[in-house]
């Protein structure tokens, strides 16, 4: 039995599959090993109650890298359908008013005007600035972060291009964008808007998945990060995969296989084998050893280096750096099977197709964070709920619905107690009670509920500390600092061992960008040999 590959990929998440496809496409023998029974990592659609299917972990599609989309189209004829929800966001307020963010800026402005006239006017220039900034980020995201100390000719060229792109913005905008990167989302939004609901609802994208409140520096960056590749004219966008996000994972799996990659599920890797400082293959839980010329880990950096690799192979300084990567998962999921559509005290059923955002103000978000900061779950959490069954009846029995709620904050490290059933129940109750203030019938229509704590996200999906981004997206863990300073180029101190997951540049989200970039770097090394 010949078990030798050109490349083994540990973990068939969407980034791993992207890398697998791109490597296999060049004729390499690629094997992707997935611990779970299904591929897709955190992008899975599961049945939580007979007939009710929900995106268990990640419930929004991001902006896939255009290269991945064209790979999908080429190989499969058609890429999975991305639903661009309209309105993107429905944000109710306790007094019965609400905010709607539509794809059409004029419609959005009209909704804002009901809350604040000046805010409605400022929306357009704000979107313009944010789009410029996101455009600059996108250019940086396509590149492998330069090595600051030994900038080679090709790095220099890409830096110059990036610099050129920045300069094209013009002096004033360039300063403005530069300023944004380190700001707090509160400072940013306070400069532009006055209405609390609007600021809360925009600010929510700056803290989503973060163990930070909106008053933390770097949250303005996160707002921009979440805009990269999305609708450029809208204040916020909500994308969803028709049929559930699992459809996207399956498509990426099909793509990888059509390129010649082999995928094995239920095949947990326990160790990367290393000989003389080089990765030579992996050992599976069942003891099988598979050799390969290179090993590429889609798992997060901490798991990769402290569990899969024998740390003795690494320098103490590198180990220290890896241990210092901040994870600190901040959110949980509550998934509900509903008997009917919840009825909100304001708005219409037609408004519920995108995200229902409970974010009445930045102070509300900050207070939610205050609880978590001291190790408690938020009494009144920030909620991002979606009811995909409205536009996709295949997800629930006729007339019934599924609702998926991202609940923040739910700190991985609890000060009191542990993430046991009673804490999870408490979390779900906080979330449902909070939402029920806006949709009073909610509690009566719940048929089944599934709660995924940060601890569950770790055990079920292998996300260290339940961090959905494979490492916090804070300024000190971005670009050439991601996953650790000096090793941001997808390579690792172990020769022939690479990273391709969200723990690398440009980080989390359903984009395929880390996987896409990693494949490019790996292929460079393959060619060099």
């Amino acid at each position: 039995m010949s078990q030798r590959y050109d490349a083994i990929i540990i973990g068939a998440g969407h980034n791993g599959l992207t890398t697998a496809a791109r490597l296999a496409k060049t004729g390499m023998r690629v094997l992707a090993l997935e611990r779970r029974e299904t591929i897709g990592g955190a992008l899975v659609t599961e049945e939580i109650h007979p007939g009710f299917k929900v995106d268990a972990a990640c419930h929004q599609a991001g902006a896939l890298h255009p290269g991945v989309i064209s790979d999908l189209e080429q190989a499969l004829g058609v890429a999975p359908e991305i639903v661009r929800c309209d309105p993107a966001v429905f944000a109710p307020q306790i007094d019965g008013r609400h905010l709607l963010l539509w794809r059409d800026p004029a419609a959005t402005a009209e909704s804002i005007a009901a809350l604040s006239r000046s805010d409605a006017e400022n929306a357009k220039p704000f979107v313009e600035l944010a789009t410029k900034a996101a455009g600059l980020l996108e250019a940086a995201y396509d590149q492998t972060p330069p090595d600051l100390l030994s900038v080679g000719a090709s790095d220099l060229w890409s830096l110059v291009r990036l610099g050129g792109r920045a300069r094209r913005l013009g002096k004033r905008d360039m300063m403005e964008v530069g300023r944004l990167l380190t700001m707090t989302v509160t400072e940013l939004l306070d400069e532009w808007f006055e209405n609390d609901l609007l600021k809360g609802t925009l600010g929510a994208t700056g803290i989503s998945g973060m163990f930070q409140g909106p008053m933390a520096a770097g949250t303005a960056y996160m707002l921009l990060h979440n805009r990269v590749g999305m609708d450029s004219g809208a204040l916020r966008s909500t994308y969803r995969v028709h049929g559930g996000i699992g459809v996207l994972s399956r498509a990426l799996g099909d793509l990888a296989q059509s390129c010649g990659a082999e995928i094995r599920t239920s095949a947990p890797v326990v160790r990367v084998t290393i000989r003389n400082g080089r990765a030579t293959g992996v050992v599976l839980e069942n003891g099988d050893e598979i050799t390969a010329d290179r090993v590429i880990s889609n798992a997060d950096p901490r798991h990769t280096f402290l569990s899969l690799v024998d740390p003795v192979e690494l320098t103490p300084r590198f180990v220290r750096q890896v241990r210092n990567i901040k994870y600190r998962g901040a959110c949980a999921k509550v998934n509900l099977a509903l008997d009917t559509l919840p009825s909100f005290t304001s708005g219409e059923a037609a408004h519920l197709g995108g995200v229902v955002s409970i974010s009445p103000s930045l102070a509300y978000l900050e207070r939610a964070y205050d609880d978590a900061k001291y190790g408690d779950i938020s009494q009144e959490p920030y909620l991002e709920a979606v009811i995909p069954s409205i536009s996709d009846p295949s997800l629930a029995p006729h007339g019934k619905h599924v609702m998926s709620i991202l609940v923040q904050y739910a700190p991985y490290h609890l000060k009191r107690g542990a993430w046991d059933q009673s804490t999870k129940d408490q979390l779900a109750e906080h979330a449902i009670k909070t939402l029920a203030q806006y949709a009073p019938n909610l509690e009566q229509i719940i048929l089944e509920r599934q709660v995924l704590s940060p601890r569950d996200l770790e055990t079920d999906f292998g996300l260290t500390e339940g961090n959905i981004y494979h490492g916090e997206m804070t300024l000190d863990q971005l670009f050439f600092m991601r996953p650790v300073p000096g090793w941001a180029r997808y390579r690792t101190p172990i020769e022939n061992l690479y990273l391709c997951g969200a723990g690398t540049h440009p980080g989390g989200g359903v984009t395929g960008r880390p996987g896409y970039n990693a494949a490019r770097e790996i292929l460079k090394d393959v060619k060099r040999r």
Partner: protein
Amino acid sequence: MLRTTPFHARTSALCQAQNWRRWAGYIAASSYELNHDREYHAIRSAAALIDVSPLYKYLLRGPDAQRLLNRVVTRDVEKCAVNQVMYTPWCDEAGKVIDDGTLSRLGEEMFRLTAAEPNLRWLQDNAVSLDVTIDDVSDSIAAVALQGPNSREILKRASDADLDGLRFFRLTSGRVQDVPVTISRTGYTGDLGYEVWVDAERALSLWDSLVSAGEPYGITPAGMLALDVARIEAGLLLNQVDYIPANKALIEARKSSPFELGLGWTVVLEKDHFVGQTALLEERKQDPEWQFKGLEIEWDSLEEIYNGFGLPPELPTVPWRTSVPVYSHDRQIGYGTSGAWSPTLKKYIALAHLQARHAEPGTELTMEVTAEHQRKHARARVVDPPFFDPERKRA
């Protein structure tokens, strides 16, 4: 306040000179008598009792203890038998020495490491995912060195341990009166001698037993000055004096590799991966830039210099530990880090960092001496340390 050692009740009562110095945040007697001369001679001709409790001590236990140590230190710990002691340095990733100390194998899965500086964090950083517990026992274990030609006789009288069978760099356990101790045949004097390790609470009773057993053999408490002369004669390095630990050096030039410190013999490059191995393998390919050697300053040259002022040679009877320039034909090619007049050898000796091409034994160099406020160059000859290495040390 600075700390006092578990022997302080005794040492402070004995310290007529009130001459104390710092050692790792403790105070330690520089000399007990007004002059350290007799304390030094006790080391070389009778027996000296030296409080070495301020050493940092770590107890490493567990199935991976050997693996951890082998990863950290440069010597091959696999070769260290139970009840054996190894002297070893350890390095950072660039192969520069962080510290040095002795490694005692107390059991199959139990070691004690001594260090001049704190190393707990470093050990823990290297222990990630290893099955080993590391305890800092610096405060809970006291240590006293009994050094000198009569030390064996004294210990034989004081303890039930088999000392005749105890070879150089081996250890044994036993009792002194009813106090359980570990005795290692080690020391920092280059002479026949032992170090006795004891629970801090029982320290005083150990001291008393040794003193009363040693009385007929001339046992003398000795301070740091006497010890310093002895260790210079023995060519033994002192952290922060003869080299700067890599993790504390402010600039690269202040760091040294084991090869540059004359510790090449402790580096086992062939063993499994250890911290600094890659850099040391690389360095081994070339000759080190620096060597750490002994210098014997010529008496005639000293006499010439001092006679020029109408003086007899004035000699450093108290050991020095400053940086003193060393020259070859008036060009500086190194620096001395410690030196003293050796009463035993009747020579002025020094330990020095020398550029490698000037470090061959026998090379004629000059070292700066200040005579009557003027800087002069005294002729000196390179020698391989130790300066003094009596047979009884190993016999």
